[in-house]
């Protein structure tokens, strides 16, 4: 009783009523519990006979119009529904469905009407919201939707006419055609004409300058000699954002658009600028002009700022990760080239490796460095000293750009992680054949390696050894057990299990008990399926049906990964904006009901996958 009174006292319009009335309501309410997904009221159905006040949980208001069902609003603790139907005595204008397990206090119709009669402020509270509350909510949702970058299709950006020439066209003729059409790029088409194939190339303004004029080529040179082929193309119906990513990844300024196997037009970097002149995604450009430390530092700051912009624009975390990886890779390459310029050419082939989240294309905010260096066997005398000096320079420069040193010393400056190829191969063989705690820890970092710079073919040198671990049942079993060390923090009632102690009270760690659990599962499935990718989503997608992971489960895990990643990144970005150190410890009460529900669903998907792994790998049987 006192509990209900206290709750009513805290929530308008009840809080404005005299205490006596509140006690009267408390002793007249009925309490009902709705499981997730239960339909409480039905649009056009039986009129409501209670005013519903949400005590715990949240509900969706759904409205069907022209056959389309839309969520018009989400109500949570302390909010009421059913009053429109109650006041009008008509069927509900919305369907109300429990978003999650929801407990409601139901105020009987007679009492509700009496309170409206006796207390004008109470009546007004409900009257005001009837009119167009639903309409407003709907409009708000549309208004907050993503801007151009995420709504426009690439085909809508085409402004230049498509100019196509045959490969034997002299460059002077080709340039003339471009001038006539005022095009900044042209497509060089090989037979069969009009079809996009490996022979289709592209020539841009820049190519004419760099490859023809600057090189002093004869203007009668066939255009095929200066074209880039095969051209990097994207489907015309991709979102502008995806096109932008593609440009960044490949360092190009023009993208031919394909549709049904045909090139239908070319969009340029300038078209993107026109659309989003302030969008900082076009950053790798700035690097070319960056020379001082300050320039580089400004560049990394800009990347961080971009993450916020992308988040606000509604990008998926995986897309942000790819964009950030492209930007950070560009920076890294720039820094390594500077170091090479200072130290002279490398004495033998080598590769600079990034590990962990960077290796998986999943770094969003700047984190600690995780890198390593691999160089050819039988390196000449002095190679070791050269790479030591190179590593020192690069790591130092990265620190200056805002990437702190790895506390675990997993960096190329550590001699252990700067070794010839055969030593690296032995490392991997050792970890797999003796999978102790230490080894499992290392695999979590080094299995996710990705070469960013250098000519040594790392993938061919190391990946086959990694993938051979799939035949080692003991190793797989250990890896499975390690992947289950953290369990999804969700209980049988689908409630979040929160930390209960000390200053960790009420928080959930969205890394260790969120994204990291999915990363570990994906690494396991990829290994089981023999998938060489490092990216978590790619691993899940490609190992579905080729490992113990089903397609449905893969999709659920991917969605869960995006969602938890998004919550985590939003949280961290908010902290950054407030000048705080970003953390993974999310205070659950600060999440919206929608976020909380989505988090629960995501964690439930993880829990289901973990249970399946426990069964498949019999993790409880491995001592």
């Amino acid at each position, binding site marked *: 009783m006192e509990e209900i009174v206290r709750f009513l006292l805290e929530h308008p319009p009840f809080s404005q009523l005299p205490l006596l009335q509140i006690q009267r309501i408390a002793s007249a309410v009925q309490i009902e*519990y709705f499981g997730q997904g239960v339909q409480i009221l039905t649009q056009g159905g039986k009129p409501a006979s209670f005013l519903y006040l949400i005590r715990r949980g949240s509900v969706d208001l759904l409205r069907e119009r022209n056959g389309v069902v839309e969520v018009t609003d989400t109500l949570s603790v302390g909010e009421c529904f059913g009053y429109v139907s109650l006041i009008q005595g008509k069927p509900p204008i919305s369907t109300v469905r429990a978003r999650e397990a929801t407990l409601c206090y139901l105020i009987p119709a007679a009492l509700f009407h009496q309170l409206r009669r006796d207390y004008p402020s109470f009546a007004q509270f409900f009257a005001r919201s009837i009119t167009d509350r639903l309409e407003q909510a709907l409009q708000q949702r549309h208004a907050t939707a993503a801007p151009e970058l995420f709504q426009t299709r690439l085909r809508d950006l085409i402004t230049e006419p498509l100019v196509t020439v045959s490969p034997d066209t002299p460059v002077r003729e080709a340039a003339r055609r471009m001038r006539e059409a005022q095009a900044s790029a042209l497509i060089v088409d090989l037979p069969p004409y009009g079809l996009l194939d490996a022979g289709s190339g592209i020539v841009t303004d820049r190519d004419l300058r760099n490859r023809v004029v600057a090189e002093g080529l004869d203007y009668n040179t066939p255009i095929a000699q200066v074209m880039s082929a095969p051209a990097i193309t994207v489907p015309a119906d991709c979102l502008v954002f995806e096109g932008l990513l593609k440009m960044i990844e490949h360092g190009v300024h023009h993208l031919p658009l394909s549709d049904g196997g045909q090139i239908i037009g070319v969009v340029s970097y300038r078209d993107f600028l026109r659309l989003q002149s302030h969008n900082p995604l076009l950053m790798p450009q700035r690097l070319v002009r960056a020379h001082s430390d300050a320039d580089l530092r400004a560049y990394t700051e800009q990347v961080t700022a971009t993450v916020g912009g992308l988040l606000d624009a509604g990008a998926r975390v995986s897309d942000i990760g790819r964009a950030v990886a492209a930007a950070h890779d560009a920076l890294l390459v720039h820094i390594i080239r500077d170091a090479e310029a200072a130290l002279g050419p490398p004495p033998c082939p080598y590769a600079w490796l990034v590990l962990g989240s960077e290796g998986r294309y999943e770094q969003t905010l700047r984190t600690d460095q995780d890198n390593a260096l691999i160089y050819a066997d039988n390196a000449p005398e002095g190679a070791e000293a050269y790479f030591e000096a190179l590593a020192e320079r690069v790591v130092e420069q990265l620190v200056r750009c805002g990437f702190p040193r790895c506390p675990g010393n997993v960096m190329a400056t550590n001699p252990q992680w700067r070794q010839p190829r055969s030593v690296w191969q032995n490392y991997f063989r050792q970890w797999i054949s003796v999978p102790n705690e230490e080894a499992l820890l290392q695999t979590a970092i080094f299995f996710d390696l990705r070469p960013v710079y250098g000519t040594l073919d790392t993938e061919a040198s190391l990946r086959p050894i990694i993938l051979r671990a799939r035949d080692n049942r003991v190793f797989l079993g250990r890896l499975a057990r390690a992947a289950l060390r953290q369990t999804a923090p969700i209980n049988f009632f689908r409630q979040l299990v929160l930390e209960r102690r000390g200053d960790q009270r009420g928080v959930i760690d969205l890394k260790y008990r969120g994204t990291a659990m999915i990363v570990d599962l994906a690494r396991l499935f990829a290994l089981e399926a023999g998938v060489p990718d490092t990216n978590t989503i790619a691993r899940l997608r490609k190992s579905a049906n080729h490992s113990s992971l089903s397609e449905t489960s893969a999709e659920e895990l991917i969605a869960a990964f995006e969602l938890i990643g998004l919550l985590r990144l939003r949280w961290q970005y908010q902290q950054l904006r407030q000048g705080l150190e970003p953390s993974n410890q999310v205070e659950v009460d600060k999440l919206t009901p929608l976020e909380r529900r989505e988090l629960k669903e995501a964690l439930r998907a993880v829990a289901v996958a973990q249970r399946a792994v426990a069964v498949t790998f019999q993790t409880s049987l491995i001592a």
Partner: protein
Amino acid sequence: MFLFRRRPSNLPEPVSRYLDAPRPDPALPWRDAPYSVIDVETTGLNPRRDALLAVGMVDIDEGRIRMDRRWYTLVRPPDDAPVNPEAIRVHGLLPQDVEHAPPLDEVIPAVLQRLTGRVLVVHVADVDIGFLRQAMRRLYGVEPRGPAIDTARLAWHFQRHQRLIEGSGSEQEPALQLRALAESAGLPVFPEHNAFNDALTTAQLFLAQVSMFEAHGMPRLRDLLRAGGCLR
């Protein structure tokens, strides 16, 4: 077999009405059955030795807890079973609180009147039903009758079910305390050890548990009794 037991004559009317009322049909959809949730405060945990101090009840009709059909009464303990100082710390009732309360032979008929034709719901039947049984035996020589549901037993049913699905290694320790269960179901928890608050918490836990069944289709009373029934 109930019919063959000799029933004492001269029972108060509420008691005989309680014993004669038809039982709710187990085939009913759970919502169509009426429930009464009960919780008691006592001087101790032994129904033979300790005395009832308070009874809290609340009804559930059509799947809704009826605050307008709640009931709470203190009970005057018999002179030979004074309030145990140990238990005061738990329920906070002092001898003077119950001094002028109605005695057991007034309270029990009232309880039985409220229970007539309804499904009894308790948390941990041994205690609540144990005290009711002891009082009914002593006063009238009769037994409480079902159907009755124990929410602790329902919780145990779900936990066992979950362990079967998950295999070992479940993180959750089986905890059957009312407060722990209510919290893990995300329910508001009322101050404990007041017979009415505990009855209300039990009622809410019961609804949450039923919704677990509802995920697999509308349960019938029979399904709830199979999982959590505690009295014939």
